[in-house]
């Protein structure tokens, strides 16, 4: 069995807040001038991570199905004069990079994952297989505009970050992966389902496609 203990949790839920409002509201949380080109997801993930005070030897696991949707939309709309800034910002793990580049915070292991039905299971497995003393598991989405109308974007903006370690003392929750003797049915769990469970401190018991059962239990 693989297990880690959850010692700190940061959640940001802004639902359908306009990105400009988010930027104005959060600008004092970042170095001066850093927020000008940050995406809404970058701001939210940045705040979530910052509250856990990243360390140089932390492993960071990042999960997002759609990532920088607004930058992607803007980049696609910039053709035929493609925007270099929106191109680089639209690339998948950009939210975490925006946050950590703003603080010039190098890390060794960074695993950005994407997916849908089993993304949560896979992100947890990645975190629990890390050898780092502490793993920051973060993720989130940002609400799209014209891509949302086509149902290929998130309908809300949110982010989360968890600090996981092997130490049980002082933990607020335990997260584990245990083998399923005879795997049959596999559960699905969206990133927002996971976010809701964290917000409501609700336990999770999910069977994943790797033949492992994810259990989240609160103390």
């Amino acid at each position, binding site marked *: 069995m693989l297990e880690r203990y959850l010692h700190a949790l940061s959640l940001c839920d802004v639902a359908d807040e306009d990105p400009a409002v988010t930027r104005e509201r959060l600008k004092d949380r970042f170095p001066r001038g850093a927020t000008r080109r940050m995406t809404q997801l970058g701001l939210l993930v940045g705040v979530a991570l910052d509250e856990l005070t990243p360390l140089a030897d932390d492993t960071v696991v990042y999960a997002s199905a759609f990532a920088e949707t607004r930058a992607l939309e803007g980049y696609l709309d910039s053709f035929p004069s*493609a925007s270099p800034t929106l191109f680089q910002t639209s690339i*998948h793990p950009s939210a975490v990079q925006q946050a950590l580049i703003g603080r010039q915070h190098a890390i060794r292991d*960074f*695993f950005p994952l994407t997916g849908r039905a089993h993304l949560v299971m896979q992100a947890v497995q990645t975190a629990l297989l890390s050898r780092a003393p502490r793993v920051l598991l973060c993720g989130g989405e940002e609400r799209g505009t014209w891509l949302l109308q086509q149902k*290929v974007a998130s309908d809300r903006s949110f982010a989360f970050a968890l600090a996981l370690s092997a130490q049980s003392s002082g933990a607020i929750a335990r997260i584990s992966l245990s083998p399923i003797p005879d795997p049959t049915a596999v559960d699905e769990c969206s990133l927002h389902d996971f976010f809701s469970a964290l917000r409501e401190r609700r336990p999770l018991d999910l069977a994943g496609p*790797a*033949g492992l059962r994810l259990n989240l239990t609160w103390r």
Partner: protein
Amino acid sequence: MSQPLAVRLQASGCLTALGNAVATHSALLRGEVALRARPVLGADGGESVPLALVQGRGFDETAPPNWLPAVRALVATLAGEGWGSARRPVFVTSSNFGVGSLYAYRRHGDAAHLAFGTPHLCVEWLARELGWGANVTTVSHACVSAHLGLLLATRALEAGLAESALVFSFDFISPFVTGGFNALKILNAGFPAPYADRATGSIGLGDGAAFAVLTRDTGDFSITAQSLHNEMHHFTANRADGAGFAACLEPLRGAAAGRRVWLKGHGTGTLEAGKLESAALTAAFPDAPLVAWKGSLGHTLGSCGLVELALASESIRSGHAPGTVGTSTPTFSPAVIVEPFSTQTTDAVVCASNAFGGAHAAFILSHA
């Protein structure tokens, strides 16, 4: 951190504009350049830039994507069944997935493209087409994506969660990505000359797909150490002192101690990164010959680590490594090898890749 578990490479293969791994390796040994000048936005025109497309594939997007036959041909060479089951996980890596479909939708309004536009839609479709189960993890970290897939597969094997693991990577270029690199001005009319000390840098972009089957104990080759480092200094530039390159290579120095290595660098053709990378590789592994192959194949983006793994293993198997095709002297380092060379006096190869955000990844490949 360096990963001490030595996993075996049971099988590998790749597809580039020059063909499969054997054909690509042979063409590189002959010094062939796959890149051709093409309009950066395909049918929408623009500056002519060096691009390398898989043979027979059109540059403009179709629905379903026109690269599926190429992927099918590659996967047909992959032995075994049950990929995507509980004990045979798949790690899919890419930096593009089907994002060219979103460009096609936005430019031309055909909603059929949307079914392939997001990473999960694209991978779910591909998994159905290839008969994979649900145990498919998708990694997206720009041009080090494939390295991360290898490391996650290694960890799954190490933890006893898998009997064998398939790492599969694909990046087929589209106006979405060529337009972006052109806007950054590093994809321009010039052809890439990796590590050449010249006035203007340039890259080429190429199609690439590849696979690697990893096991704990079966296969002719071993991946004996893997390392990552993320500078988080700037989106498109590295720390000027080269510390990010050195930090990634440092754990591999110990793992390579006492071995005669050669170096397969990232070598896209940009000047500053090429200078820093060659200096760091030379400092970490003095006297080791350094080559890069993107001057011929173009940069295969998130798949480059796996494409070049297949070519490096073919080099070891055949005893001959291609030189740095497309480059010219003077180079940033005397370690840069322009012509093919024999690998028979070496024990291992260090394969390195870099990505946006100052991301670095490297591993050591050797005979088992």
